[in-house]
């Protein structure tokens, strides 16, 4: 439903940079913020009562899979945007492992066109290599002109070090990041879960953290040499965080993101759930020590952003024996409730830092302007709280798929609505 005119009443507006809050009304006219202040005269426009809730610039998830084109039975741009809106996100960046992959400008423009009428901004990520094959560079400059904000062969690593070098050189010219799915495939030929105590007990082939760490170390060196910005997709091990921390200290242009499930669950979940395929994702759930390192990395800024790696798979694809199941789980609907539960309530992150990790951080990495809550700006905002205790239910899923381990899980903090592109989308 379009709401070009709306008055949001009594919102506690969060300034992400300073952490300061202001209690005020926000008057939106024609999708643009017309006034911010106390006791505004709404002049008869529809009102949204935000008392007891907070408002921040709209959230962004920099790592999702929308599956369109090619795998529309899992997700579409439309259903993915619905899931994003439920989770409080006004923007997502979608990975290019579609069919065909997002490796040419026309596919980029197709995504942009499909998202035009959605309340959520969709930023396509183009392929690093043609066909996502890891051999020849894709036409990055052309894709950037069509709207691509970053480049990645996600799902697969850029395994060839020479190709990575040239991709980063080219990316430095375009001022866009290369997002690498950090994994040395020689160190992980056939794994299905974290290699460790639990995989040994369960008899499941493991994916060693080493496969991730070796690739991050390599890319940190290539980024240092080329000065091209590299972004670590879905970081998941303690040692990987140390490598990024050291590289940042040396001034390497490197950034990192962590998925919510990597600080909310450990590989014990595979055993406790009796091989439930909803605990199978890539990178895999790691150990309690790794979870602690994710939290510490977020707190000290080594890890810049929080993302979801929202990866829909149809129920029949996941309802199989563990090793036959595809990797990945949904994430958009559950991210904030997990951030509240695992990071804000226990005091790991301040509210402002947590919101920064899903607003300013991803946009800084992708060179996307940060929305501001100020007169004259396009209204792009999220209405939320960080305290509501609720239980995530299957009925909350807005994705076309159902593959989440969090049905029945306690959540802390709720995104109540987003406002973007002249539209209000409520979650409740």
């Amino acid at each position: 439903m379009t709401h070009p005119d709306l008055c949001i009443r009594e919102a506690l507006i969060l300034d992400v940079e300073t952490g300061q809050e202001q209690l005020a009304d926000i008057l939106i006219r024609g999708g643009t913020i017309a006034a911010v202040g106390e006791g505004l005269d709404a002049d008869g426009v529809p009102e949204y009562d935000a008392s007891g809730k907070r408002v921040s610039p709209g959230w962004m998830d920099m790592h999702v899979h929308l599956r369109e084109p090619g795998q529309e039975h899992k997700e579409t741009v439309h259903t993915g945007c619905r899931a994003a809106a439920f989770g409080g996100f006004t923007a997502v960046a979608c990975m290019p492992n579609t069919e065909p992959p997002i490796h040419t400008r026309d596919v980029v423009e197709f995504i942009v066109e499909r998202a035009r009428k959605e309340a959520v901004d969709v930023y396509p990520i183009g392929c690093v290599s043609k066909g996502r094959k890891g051999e020849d560079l894709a036409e990055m400059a052309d894709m950037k002109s069509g709207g691509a904000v970053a480049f990645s062969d996600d799902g697969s690593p850029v395994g060839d070090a020479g190709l990575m070098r040239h991709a980063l050189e080219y990316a430095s010219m375009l001022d866009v990041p290369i997002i690498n799915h950090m994994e040395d495939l020689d160190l992980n030929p056939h794994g299905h879960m974290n290699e460790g105590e639990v995989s040994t007990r369960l008899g499941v082939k493991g994916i060693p953290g080493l496969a991730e760490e070796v690739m991050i170390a390599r890319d940190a060196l290539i980024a240092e040499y080329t000065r091209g910005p590299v972004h670590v997709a879905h970081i998941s091990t303690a040692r990987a965080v140390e490598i990024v921390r050291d590289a940042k200290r040396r001034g390497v242009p490197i950034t990192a993101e962590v998925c919510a499930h990597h600080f909310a669950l450990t590989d014990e979940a595979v055993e406790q759930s009796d091989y439930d395929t909803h605990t199978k994702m890539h990178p895999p759930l790691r150990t309690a020590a790794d979870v602690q390192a994710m939290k510490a990395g977020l707190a000290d800024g080594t890890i810049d952003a929080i993302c979801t790696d929202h990866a829909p798979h149809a129920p029949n694809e996941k309802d199989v024996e563990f090793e036959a199941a595809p990797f990945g789980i949904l994430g958009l609907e559950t991210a904030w409730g997990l951030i509240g539960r695992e990071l804000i309530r226990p005091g790991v992150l301040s509210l402002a830092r947590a919101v920064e990790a899903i607003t300013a951080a991803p946009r800084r990495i992708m060179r996307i302007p940060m929305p501001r809550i100020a007169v004259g700006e396009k209204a792009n905002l999220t209405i939320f709280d960080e305290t509501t205790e609720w239980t995530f239910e299957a009925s909350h899923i807005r994705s076309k798929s159902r593959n989440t381990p969090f049905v029945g899980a306690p959540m802390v903090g709720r995104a109540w609505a987003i406002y973007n592109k002249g539209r209000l989308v409520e979650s409740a």
Partner: protein
Amino acid sequence: MTTESESENVQQDTTNPDEGLRQRHLLGLEGWSARDITRVLDTAGQFRDVLERPIRSVPSLRGVTVVNLFYEPSTRTRISFELAEKRLSADVVNFASSGSSVSKGETLRDTARNIEAMKIDMVVVRHASAGAPSFLTRCVDAVVINAGDGAHEHPTQALLDAMTIREQFGRIQGLRVSIIGDIMHSRVARSNLHALTTLGADVTLCGPASLLPVHLDRLLGEEARGQVRITTRLDEALDGCDVAMALRIQMERQGRSLFPSVREYHEQFGIQLEHLETYKDLIVMHPGPVNRGVELATDVVDHERALILNQVTNGVAVRMSVLYLMSDGRKQHE
């Protein structure tokens, strides 16, 4: 036990509700109590007697339908289960993945549900994916018996091994058993480790470092960790050992990553005749099929202290026992 009345004795003896097994399915031996394992072994002993009679069958599972669902090639285990089922007078259906609906792309759930729709009571499953048997328990109401899942567990193998050891020594408590070979990929090693430590044996795991999984020392709960020792030296594994259990080496694993060659494996980890001469009381076991001249020198395979064929015979008895005792779960469920 040639008459029906005698076989009824077995039935009466084993259906005492106070002594039923705690688990409805046999997915693995992790978590099984010494009492339950001993109960399976005791009952297997009775069925072992049946196998020595001129007429080797009892009517215990008459009217019960069992399907053998084999998604991996297997000769020995499948035949052993099938014989066990037939000797208990069960109706038996065999399903192997080749030439069936699996090759047409049907999911495990659908295959299992289709078979169950034909009114099946028990499913014996062999699958390359660890956890597939527990997945099956979520798909069907039948009692599920694991005949080997990936590198996870092969519980009936460990039960027949325990039976064979107990037969030889009269006990398991206090024995020292070494499991030698490809521990990483071995469901036999995992099931044996659980069963043998639960029954009070000390277990040594021995193999090339590249075939020992990470955190092997943490495979068991803390209370049992003292019973496990890990070594990459065969002489350490054999010194003071009562039973050496060699594991089958998969030939395709030599070469690039896991071990250099079968020749070198045999030199470093193969049990030779000299070992049997040095260790005068050492008993040798192998889950089969044996690669002669690889895990065991060919003279060792045929040695009087190799119990490989006893294991095979006990396999039928143990599977009869398991099927018989687990069929109670089916009745309670109804």
